[in-house]
């Protein structure tokens, strides 16, 4: 996994490089916009992590130039601007995800993994499977070990999101954005309650739990 990090805050950059390296990534680093663009265009990266505000050329400019030249490497924006319209602007420019500073590293890690996975997905799937849990996206039914499980529409989307990211951490914020499509701060851990309801339906009567809580990060659906 090769990651390019363009960030002008030295401390932040060092921290991220260290943490990403620990998670098993090879990280190249640039502190200036034009240098970042040069590296991004020449190197073969799996994910670009770009700060919005950079000296030289800002994050939006880098992405626009890359996309215009046909480079489709997934881009994750980091921004302290923290406003919804900035997020929209970033995504319109060609960014794939947007993370507002300050963030927990686990949140960044989960999103980077999600971007990597998206890059490799080819044909649209119609069936999802994790261990003995199966989901038919066309018939919209779910079964585990052959037993049908009845889900509410929202629970279905929640499980679908978790299954698409099986084996990866999915954070609460990611779930709110992808399942409910609202960018907001829920104050209470509303997601936990929905997860525990879902858990009651897919894990309760089975020996091996599939839906795991990852402390300080989020949730993960995995076979083991």
């Amino acid at each position, binding site marked *: 996994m090769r990651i390019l990090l363009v960030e002008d805050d030295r401390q932040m950059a060092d*921290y991220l490089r260290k*943490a990403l390296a620990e998670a098993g990534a090879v990280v190249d680093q640039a502190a200036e916009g034009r240098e970042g663009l040069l590296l991004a265009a020449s190197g073969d990266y799996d994910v670009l992590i770009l700060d919005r505000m950079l000296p030289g050329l800002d994050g939006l400019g880098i992405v626009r130039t890359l996309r215009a030249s046909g480079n489709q490497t997934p881009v994750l924006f980091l921004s302290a601007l*923290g*406003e919804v*319209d900035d997020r929209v602007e970033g995504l319109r420019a060609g960014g794939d995800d947007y993370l507002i500073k*300050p963030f927990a*590293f686990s949140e960044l890690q989960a999103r980077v993994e999600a971007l990597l996975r998206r890059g490799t997905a080819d044909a649209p799937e119609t069936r999802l499977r994790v261990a003995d849990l199966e989901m038919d996206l066309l018939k919209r039914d779910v079964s585990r070990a052959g037993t049908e499980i009845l889900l509410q529409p929202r629970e279905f989307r929640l499980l679908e999101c978790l299954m698409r990211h099986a084996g990866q951490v999915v954070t609460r914020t990611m779930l709110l954005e992808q399942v409910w499509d609202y960018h907001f701060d829920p104050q*209470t851990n509303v997601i936990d*309650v*929905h997860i525990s309801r879902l858990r009651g339906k897919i894990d309760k009567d089975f020996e091996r739990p599939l839906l795991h809580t990852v402390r300080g990060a989020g949730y993960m659906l995995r076979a083991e």
Partner: protein
Amino acid sequence: MTPPALALGAWAQLRSGAARILRSSTFRLALLYVVLLGASVAILLGFIYWSTAGYMDRQTTATIQAEIRGLAEQYRRVGLGGLTSLISERVARDPVGSSVYLLVDDRLERVVGNLDRWPPEIPDAQGWIRFRLREWGPARAEEHEARGQVFSLRGGLRLLVGRDVRDLEATRALILDALTWGLAITAALALLGSWLMSAGLVRRLEAINQTSREIMEGDLSRRIPLSGSGDDFDALAASLNRMLERIEALMASVRQVSDNIAHDLRTPLTRLRNKLELLKAELPETLGARTLAEETIADAEEMLATFNALLRIARIESGSRRSAFQDLDLGPLVEDLVELYEPVAADREQDLSYGGCGEAWIFGDRDLVFQALTNLVDNAIKYTPPGGRIRAQVGVEGDCILVEVADDGPGIPAALHTQVFRRFFRVDDSRSTPGSGLGLSLVQAVAQLHRASIALLDNQPGLRVRIAFARAQPRTAVESATAAETA
């Protein structure tokens, strides 16, 4: 808009413009001026009338009295015979002229004179009489107005001496007519003048008003337009503009300072949290220190969250972020919200329900409105005891979309209703319930950004929070994109 709607719109605009002019103090002042001017002109014209028509009247009286003096002299010197001969002589000279004579006996039969019958009108104490001359004029076919004096002579004889005043009356009517018209034209011109004058002033005041409103809505960059004439209105506008520049500069520097503080504190806090995270990763999972690190990370995150909330409220209050505004149906949004929070309420054995009503379109920021309503529902769940009922409702009332979140919890005392919107204010002084005290401040900031009004009502028992948004007509995608750009 269709042509009739356009005409209707123009008419409504005209009417509201006229209403504004009528209400304006300039117009009222001008109206007072019109009344005073009208009164002065009326007095002046009254004097003119009195001195012209009155002069003619006095002239007639003097003529009649001179004639009477001539006849009385004759009567005293020569007696009745002399009087009748003098009258006959005068009548023969001018039978239907301007002078009228009639001498009658005690049975009111004519002795001499140019009038056939004694007039039926009754004279006043001085013997003055107004009467009508029938079959008068050169062809003896007209009816004229006349004035005269009546005397009683010896032997039951009565004498009437008078003058035809028809021409006089006609002149008097002419003068009165001219004066009345003069007064009416003066009043009309004064009214028109004051209307035009106040319309001009109202237009310039309205420009100042409009700019003030836009500034109060958060657009501090607005300035009052100057007409370029350099008059006192321009001087006022220039002063106000200078004041606005000063305020804007001050606010910018305050915002700069608070942003700097927030940024400067947020950055080291984030680093602290990041370092703790690195530290945590180094610690073996079995060690107690790892739990301590996790708790410290949670504390740092709480501080960061409070900071972010404060910065966010400040950003929303500055009113600079309307670019994410779009046409928004609040029904599905509140339904989503209820669906999201229903399990949380159920966990506390509360009943959270949704009440909707067809389409409820507003023009707003989807995520911010959702955030604000989330805060309300979250509060309701937090402060309502188990077993309580919470209802989130969307309704249409005239031009308003009403969103209500009502609970049957302890409510908020009316005395505290204005205070709860202050930053860090907590109804619960002991601060035993979790929360930053920023939730309702954010709700208010979002409401203000949307020009919506917010009210805390008594739900008997409990609290009912009502936000009234302006109703929007859902537009096509292109129209709302242009609206968002211009917003």
